[in-house]
């Protein structure tokens, strides 16, 4: 077993364990900090594939946002940011059934997909070509429509959040 495989397994185990801790710890802030570790693990997986751009973007976008997430969690939860009571409700078996079925279905669908077994192209030694990536995002033959749709979606979410957060003055008067 090569060194890189051992590193991969270590990183994967840490990522999965911390992802599990995100949903199981009781303190909101601890959950957010475990989320930092899980997202760092994903960035490390990208780095193991020898790309340079995506791990950096992963850290910039997600871990940068975690600080904000923690603040929102602290502000919105009651008492000492610790929820009390059971973490499960009476429908837990239904949720478990749906998610396990979904997981099996996804694995089955992906294993039938012909692209599943193709090996990825090796990244050239200077790192991947960011210019080609940028051009693909703005090329009509490339990904410009998904890119713009995603931007419009985010803009809509932003405006919606501002609309919800603003106090409307005519109602007060």
């Amino acid at each position: 077993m090569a060194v890189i495989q051992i590193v991969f397994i270590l990183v994967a185990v840490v990522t999965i364990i911390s992802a599990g801790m995100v949903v199981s710890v009781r303190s909101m802030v601890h959950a957010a900090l475990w989320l930092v570790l899980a997202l760092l693990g994903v960035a490390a997986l990208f780095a193991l594939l020898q790309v340079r751009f995506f791990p950096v973007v992963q850290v910039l976008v997600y871990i940068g946002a975690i600080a904000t997430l923690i603040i929102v969690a602290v502000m919105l939860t009651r008492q000492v940011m610790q929820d009390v009571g059971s973490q499960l409700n009476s429908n837990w078996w239904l949720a478990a059934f749906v998610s396990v079925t979904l997981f099996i279905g996804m694995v089955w669908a992906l294993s039938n997909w012909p692209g599943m077994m193709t090996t990825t192209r090796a990244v050239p030694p200077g790192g991947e070509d960011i210019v080609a990536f940028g051009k693909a995002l703005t090329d009509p033959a490339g990904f410009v429509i998904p890119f713009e749709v995603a931007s419009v979606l985010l803009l809509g979410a932003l405006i919606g959040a501002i609309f919800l957060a603003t106090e409307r003055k005519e109602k007060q008067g």
Partner: protein
Amino acid sequence: MNFLYDPVGFLAEWLRGLLSTWGIPDVWITFMLFLVGAGLLATGAMVLVVFLIWGERKVIGRVQDRFGPNRVGPWGIFQTFADLLKIFTKEYITPTGVDIVSYNLAPILAVASVLMVWAVIPFSITFYGTDFNAAVLYIMAVGSIGEVGVVMAGWGSNNKYAMLAAFRAVAQLISYEVPMVLSLVLPVMFAGSMSLVGIVQSQPVWNIFLAPLGAIVFLISSIAEVGRAPFDLTESESELVAGFNIEYSGLKFGMFYVADFLHAFTISLLFATFFLGGWQGPGAAQFPFLGFVYYVLKTGCVYFLTVLMRAALPRFRIDQMMDLNWKFLTPLSLVLVMLSALVYKILPKNMVFLQVIVMVVLNVLVYVVADWLLNYYEKRNPRPAVVNELRPMARFPYAVAQSSSVSKKAREG
């Protein structure tokens, strides 16, 4: 003579040759060289902080008409060592109810997030940690790890003041990232590359001549990222006890202190890289050591400027700080990026002099328009005063009249 031209490259080659005669495989030699280099760079940065603190206290002392530290050693240069010894031997006080992991991890993250930036900085043509095509993004990403450290310190301390201060600090850090990233788009655009080595190599003409306004926006927003005066309202030592690091003592506090000074120096390094041509200068390509000297000189000038700003400018109020960011710097840098991209694309690539003239004129125009708009807005919506109405005793003629009447009474009585 090779050693004098390029000491770092020479030593690395020598070490590589030595290790390969011992029969170590090439992969491990590269790994060990990177390990040694990272250790030396980090240690050098931490040792540098000792002298930065001394230099800064000396300069600020002169600005405030004092001597600064002058007792321990010649010119007080060993003062920081005495402080170091004191802070090393101080007691660690851990308050009850702290979140033990995040409380102890926060100072480490604060220093690490600054030191990680040094990995991509090109100190000379041969002397840099690593070079990759997303280095500019990497610098911003590493900075966001520092924000997580601030939140962990604030929340882990089990102190409401620490937590409130951490909220304010993170609001400031996240807000000022926006104009910082936007102003960094300009050097990336001129170089056509996001690697710092590429950006330095594309600057026979310094970027500050192509984007003077972008350089100013970057300087302001990076000072705000560091949280120094005039943006030091997270610390505000004359108003609050301290910021998010209020519950830290001993070396844990010392790490925040070191991170603060090191960050201030790092932004000067980055400013010199992005806008002042990095190690570029006459003869720097032939003699890498000369490039290193140029780089240190440029960085020193920028650092001196930031220290002078710290000494000279009063602190912003939080609403003024947010207004400066969201109502001035962010729109300004957005407009600047769009106009610069358009004009730079139109200009012929081989006429450098024309490029510089047109870009400077463009920047001046953008600044004049922005200034006019600000004044116009300020006149229409004057900033509400938050000062209380003057108390009668404090008013000048009244106070004089009263004091004279008091003295008259005293004479009569």
